[in-house]
């Protein structure tokens, strides 16, 4: 491994969508935000200038859904 680099927020694309799920207490509707990294741009701007070509990227952390209104991590089925 050549190195581990944090992805700046500018390379994340945030998508907000409605999220409906059935809970034991009833139906819940909320807005959920998901992030998709633009790895091509990040590799071109950050990785290649730092480590050179011929590398392979691997996302080391997951991308959980966040509540788009509160900004908190979505709780799983309470």
């Amino acid at each position, binding site marked *: 491994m050549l190195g581990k680099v*944090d992805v700046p927020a500018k390379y994340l694309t*945030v998508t907000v969508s409605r999220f409906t799920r059935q809970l034991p207490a*009833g139906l819940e509707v*909320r807005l959920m*935000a998901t*992030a998709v990294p633009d790895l091509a741009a990040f590799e071109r701007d950050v990785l290649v200038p730092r480590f050179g070509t011929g*590398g*392979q990227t691997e996302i080391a952390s997951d*991308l959980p859904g966040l509540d788009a*209104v509160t900004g908190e991590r979505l709780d799983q089925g309470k």
Partner: protein
Amino acid sequence: MTRTWLALALVACASPPPPAPKAAARPLPVVVERSDAGRCEASRGDDVLADPAVVGTYPKRIARLDQAALAARRKELGDRNPGVDFRVDVFGYVIAFGVPAPRGPLTTPAEIAQLEEDAKCAHADLRGFVSKETAVGKIAGAPAVYFMRAPTLERVAPLIVLPAPMDSALLAPKWKLTVEYARERVTIAPCEVAPLGATGTRAIRFRRASSRSRHARCSEKWTCQRNI
């Protein structure tokens, strides 16, 4: 004198009859007006089919009703609309209603559409019901036609108003994303084991195609060469 009595009798016969006593008070029927297209245009009555309230500020929730509340909901609907069988889901939302079929099985779509239209005209509470599909069934042993609409999950949930989301510039920094950067992975390829050669040794020499290095692993980029 006789002529006078005869005139009075004629006057009595010519006078209008006294007004009939008023009938007993009965509930007023639903006023239904039909347009040229034959559709009901009466004003809606009490919106008994109104969906139960969405609770909570955020996230919005539609509470699941218990059995007693569901039974009360069905009874309320049935009392207001006699002759109509209602189906409600676990949230109390009306998802289907059934009306008795006027005769045997209804086969043509026009007959089914007319039956639904008649039911909507006869029951003002059904006015806003938009059916999605139909099914046959029975009400008290008699054949009936049920009109179903989209489930609550896909009919009501998209219409619930939610607060505005946070700005994308505020949401993006909440993710902590890390990228590992590595050289191209080397996968160890199985090498062919040389059989016993003419010299009687089992030495195997690996040689890289480009650099002729002898001590290396056998991988995709390395060729195996037997030394016989």
